């Protein structure tokens, strides 16, 4: 496989970001994940098994859809949607999960733990564990278990144990803390199936590698469809896995502009935001040096986004590096802008996007206005919005407060 990027360095650094700020007790396990993944990448049998699953189980390659009607709301630019929403379980998350579940089995471990915010990564993990016969425990902030009760039921239906986390802010960051605490106590037989391109080395690299296929497919599909590379690639950024998924294959293409759209919440200048690159500062969080929403003493600040999947007070270290070097540009998109793009895509294209992905669509509208009708914009439509129908219905007043039509 030619998935190797020049970064990270051998200690997991992306420029001044990344690294491994983890308890000593976990270093042996992190080393094991790193060395097993290096071996698995070179193992034709492992790669064949993963490729079969991605094709026959996930449904890859995912389609590239031209959004001809939505284009009219994007300054007339050509907008091409990479349809990760059409994957099994409804988002890009399945790519990473299948790879790490196979890696778990390869390491001889029988139990998987994972964190989830909105529930997408938890559902994908529970799915892969059901398929491969692995025990599965999902940590989810208590507040999120209430906001996403349907996904809790889905995970339990798939055989996973869902543990509501009742400490701290009771959201995604606390679920990650709790998963690390479980891992350190059970690491001899447990793999922590990390869901995004954050955390201590090698997770940012491992998760990027397993999602590389998204950008690789999209690059070939755009060349085939348009006859040239896109002018810009747009993705939403929380932890940043779907953005790295679509960026990675384009990083060497210097003429392709890369845009990450962060969850601005009620505005990146307010305290109700999750835009960690725009509004945060360099710090160490969940095992890596990156941009963090923090106070003057280094205490993590609560994040806010209408999208539970982007509601995270930090970002993967490679994004921090891409922002640092200017290779990618990160801009905040507010809840209101994202919901307007959500509505427009539903009405113009008959596609209900995840609210996460709607941030990328809002970004594409902004880019289209800037670049004009000659431009080609590739958007990672990272997930479908079925899970968000309750939130959207409440937002747009489609149902009365009791949820009745």
């Amino acid at each position: 496989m030619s998935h190797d990027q020049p970064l990270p360095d051998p200690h997991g650094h992306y420029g001044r970001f990344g690294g491994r700020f983890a308890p000593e007790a976990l270093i042996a396990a992190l080393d094991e994940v790193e060395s097993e993944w290096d071996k698995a990448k070179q193992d034709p049998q492992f790669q064949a098994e993963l490729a079969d699953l991605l094709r026959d189980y996930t449904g890859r390659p995912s389609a590239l859809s031209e959004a001809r009607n939505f284009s009219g709301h994007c300054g007339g630019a050509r907008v091409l949607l990479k349809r990760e929403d059409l994957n099994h379980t409804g988002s890009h998350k399945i790519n990473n999960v299948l790879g790490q579940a196979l890696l778990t089995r390869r390491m001889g471990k029988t139990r998987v733990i994972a964190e989830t915010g909105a529930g997408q990564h938890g559902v994908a993990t529970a799915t892969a564990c059901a398929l491969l016969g692995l025990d599965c425990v999902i940590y989810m902030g208590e507040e999120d278990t209430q906001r996403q009760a349907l996904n809790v039921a889905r995970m339990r239906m798939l055989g996973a144990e869902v543990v509501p986390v009742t400490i701290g802010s009771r959201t995604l960051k606390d679920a990650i803390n709790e998963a690390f605490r479980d891992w350190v106590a059970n690491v001899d037989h447990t793999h922590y199936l990390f869901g995004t391109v954050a955390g201590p080395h090698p997770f940012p690299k491992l998760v990027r590698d397993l999602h590389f296929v998204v950008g690789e497919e999209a690059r070939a599909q755009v060349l085939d469809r348009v006859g040239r590379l896109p002018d810009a690639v747009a993705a939403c950024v929380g932890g940043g896995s779907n953005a790295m998924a679509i960026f990675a294959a384009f990083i060497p293409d210097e003429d392709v502009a890369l845009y990450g759209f962060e969850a601005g919440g009620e505005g990146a200048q307010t305290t109700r935001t999750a835009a960690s690159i725009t509004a945060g500062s360099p710090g160490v969080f969940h095992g890596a040096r990156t941009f963090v929403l923090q106070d003057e003493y280094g205490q993590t600040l609560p994040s806010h986004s209408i999208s539970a999947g982007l509601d995270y007070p930090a970002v993967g270290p490679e994004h921090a590096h891409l922002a640092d070097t200017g290779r990618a540009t990160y801009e905040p998109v507010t809840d209101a802008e994202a919901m307007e793009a959500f509505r427009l895509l539903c009405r113009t294209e008959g596609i209900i996007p995840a609210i996460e992905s709607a941030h990328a669509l809002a970004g594409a509208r902004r880019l289209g206005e800037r670049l004009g009708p000659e431009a080609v914009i590739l958007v990672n439509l990272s997930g479908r919005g079925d899970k968000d129908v309750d939130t959207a219905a409440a937002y747009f007043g489609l149902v009365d407060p009791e949820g009745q039509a």
Partner: protein
Amino acid sequence: MTTATALQNTLTAAREAGRAALIGYLPAGFPDVESSIRVIEAMVEGGCDVIEVGLPYSDPMMDGPTIQRAADRALAAGTTTDDVFRVVEATAATGAAAVVMSYWNPIERYGVERFAAALAKAGGAGVITPDLIPEESEEWTAASRASGLDRVFLVAPSSTDRRLALTTQACSGFVYAASLMGVTGTRAQVSDTAAVLVRRTREVTRDSGLPVCVGLGISTGAQAAEVASYADGVIVGAGFCQRVLDAPDLETGLVAVRSFAQELAEGVRSGRA
């Protein structure tokens, strides 16, 4: 030739007395800044030789529920990094050696050199860094050397021999041996992994004589005695926090803390009998 820190002197004195040192942990600002100073004074009166002053952090990944609750209380009371230095100063005034236990981000945010200088000025002897490994510690090593502070890194039952050597070489004062694979909090028994880890660690510290202190899961006098039979120091945290959390008022808590410290102090003195 650098002069010995208060931590090094205290551990040497305990070794010369033929016993392990008793090291007690409390987050600064728990339950509030002034009260935490009083709890620490009670810990020292009861027999703690060294106090680990915790810097309360919003995301304590290595801590179990008891210390999480204590740290949350401290943060809710508005405790800041500067308050931690105040508590260190008060701790040093008791005659016990004061070290800070902190996750890395608050130190980095304060400014690594600035933090080291402020801690040294407050009379602190060093810092225990549970989520900083030697590979990431270049800046901290320089700053702590410049300020004459000890650097305490952790080793764990999962550490390879190569990492035991690497980590103990980077330490000064002592090396913190995590008794088990897990987070802080009380356990019914001392894990078998503790003695094995101490033995393995001593194999790589034979030349340096670096003290090996054991923490995680120790919460009774009998457990302290057991660990004191093979370690240079016994570290207790959650047991102190729990007594403060359980007490109806501060005065009752102070009595319980003092008596708990006495029980542990008797333990570390009977371990090698």
